């Protein structure tokens, strides 16, 4: 169990550092999501399941979705080619 916790904490650090070093905004959001998921498992290990539920719903779910929507609004996510004729 100790080893598992260490691996999770290491993953947390790796995620936190790599969010800052990623060029692509979409990638960094997905890394941020995975950070929240790891944090969720850590909350369960720390015996606070209510925080784990909140972390999973808010951190990995709603916040990332809001980030995605914002990126789409500011046109930071490029649309796929096949969607273009549909738009026009």
């Amino acid at each position, binding site marked *: 169990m100790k080893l598992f916790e260490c691996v999770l904490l290491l993953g947390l650090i790796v995620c936190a550092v790599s969010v800052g070093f990623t060029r692509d905004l979409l990638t960094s959001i997905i890394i941020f999501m995975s950070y929240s998921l790891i944090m969720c498992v850590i909350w369960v290990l720390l015996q*606070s399941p209510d925080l784990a*539920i909140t972390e999973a*719903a808010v951190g990995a*779910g*709603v916040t990332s979705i*809001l980030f995605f*929507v*914002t990126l789409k609004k500011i046109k930071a996510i490029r649309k796929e080619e096949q*969607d273009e004729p549909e738009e026009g």
Partner: protein
Amino acid sequence: MSRRRDNYENSRWRRFKRWLEGEIDPLTEGGVGLSKAPSSTAASLEGTDRGREPEEDVALSPGDLEKDVALSPREPEKDVALSPGGTEPDTLPALREPGGRGLRLYRKFYQIMSIFLCLGIICVLLWTIAYLPAFGNAGNPDNNEVSARYIEKGLEETGAVNMVTGMILDYRAFDTFGESCVLFIASCCVLVLLRIDDDGGSGDAEKRKREANDRVFEPKNDIILQKCACVLVPVIMVFGIYIILNGHLSPGGGFSGGAVLGSGLILYLNAFGFQKTEQMFNGRTYRRITVSALTFYCLAKSYSFFTGANHMESGIPLGTPGDILSSGLILPLNICVGLVVACTMYAFYTLFRKGGI
């Protein structure tokens, strides 16, 4: 461009004054005006001009050559400035031209300083952690009579098996009320910032058209997403309701359950589009649910708030601990918080998506 080359000309104040008067741009730090740079002919003219200038300088001040070089670090920059300015006229000369050496230096300095700042903060925080008392130590300052009272008398006084919920919705109900209000205010602020009005000017009409376009094509009737949502959304909803209703019995409570409910609503909206969700949930529903939940919370606990958030008898029987219908006011308050949180999550998403609920 023949200038007097004395100490005053090189001094910081003279350059500051010229910057104030708009003659130079401090970022292209060579005394080159920004206005001259963009056009290529001007740049080439400037180039010849500048090419001549160092010679003039040397001719003018042959005596104190070392002093001149020492005083003004401009000449080397100008020499470098010639090569890209002449060969490749750019639209952004201020950024490309090596006149922006100060800018590049600043950027490097900024990076290094940010790394140092980060490392410094990490060191300070780690150093602070070293002084924290050990986890779970009985002599820690948080093991005082307050937590002892909560642990010993909590079940008896609030009737909630889940001690955390008993704390936040009974002893500390005022704090939770503030949190719910903060959520409501946050959604109001997002509404103010992102809402697209119906009666706007001509600019708004185009904006609304674009938003409508976004709205029509957003849910692309993805069959995989719809089938997944058919399976997942009921489970998510039931789980959220379970968390809220069992807030006083098992881990969870209003906030967690509300967040789960909100995520389920967002998933449903993504799969089936706005038209279907608006049948059951629109702006009016949002307002009604949120305001009535907050009002109920406020009224139900107002006697306690009025007396300084002291714990008082509510008159509602606490019931058997462990039953769903127990622990007095905690269950309705949990439902209120959960509704407010779920509505706020959903409202955030719709406001971000289409600028309206």
